[in-house]
């Protein structure tokens, strides 16, 4: 349980945040998030498209660095990673 997953804004309201979890069996970033999102169908559809890929506008970070959505399917996670998933930013 050493991976921390943070959701923000609408996504936080759907899933909670600061979720401590283990790496999924396949070690993939997308599997980690899909595993959490499956608990909430409305939430799942806010993040994933019908093919199970991340929706274009969803922003993904690993250890404070942005992951391009096109790279997400090939991104792995490991112990102590700090993951964040959030909608388009709206500060200012």
């Amino acid at each position, binding site marked *: 349980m050493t991976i921390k997953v943070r959701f923000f804004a609408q996504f936080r309201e759907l899933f909670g945040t600061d979720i401590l979890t283990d790496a999924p069996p396949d070690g993939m970033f997308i599997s980690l998030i899909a595993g959490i999102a499956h608990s909430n169908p409305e939430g799942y559809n806010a993040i994933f498209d019908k093919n199970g890929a991340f929706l274009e*506008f969803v922003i993904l*970070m690993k250890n404070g660095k942005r992951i391009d959505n096109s790279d997400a399917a090939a991104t792995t996670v490991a112990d102590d990673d700090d993951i964040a998933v959030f909608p388009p930013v709206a*500060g200012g």
Partner: protein
Amino acid sequence: MIAVQTADVDIGGLINAAKQRSTGAVVVFDGIVRDDDIVEMELEAYEDVAHKELEKIAADATTQFNLLSVDIVHRTGRLAVGENILIIVVSAGHREEAYAGSRFIIEAIKKGVPIWKKELTKDGGRWVPGEHGHGAGKRG
């Protein structure tokens, strides 16, 4: 001063602190909670990353527009109508640089700093859609 914080800040004090002998212009942007039929606004930040992004934006603006100083204070938490959300104070030798630098910073913040706003209304709340949102915002 670069900060993501709940507290407000003394703008006059920031302006005075920004002045150096070569300063010819200070431009301040103050973003304020507007009464769009709301009760309050709630701001949420991915704080570590937001702070780092603000530092980067300040450094980029300083280089690109020859700024002498940059302060950015972005508030979080619940803010009433009329309260300051975001204060940007830039100083430069000349006004063109100060205006352009200030504008660069606010546009960069809107695009890339992980902060979100929820408008709290009598009926609940609505998340302010981000600039690149395709329907992610405006949720009840």
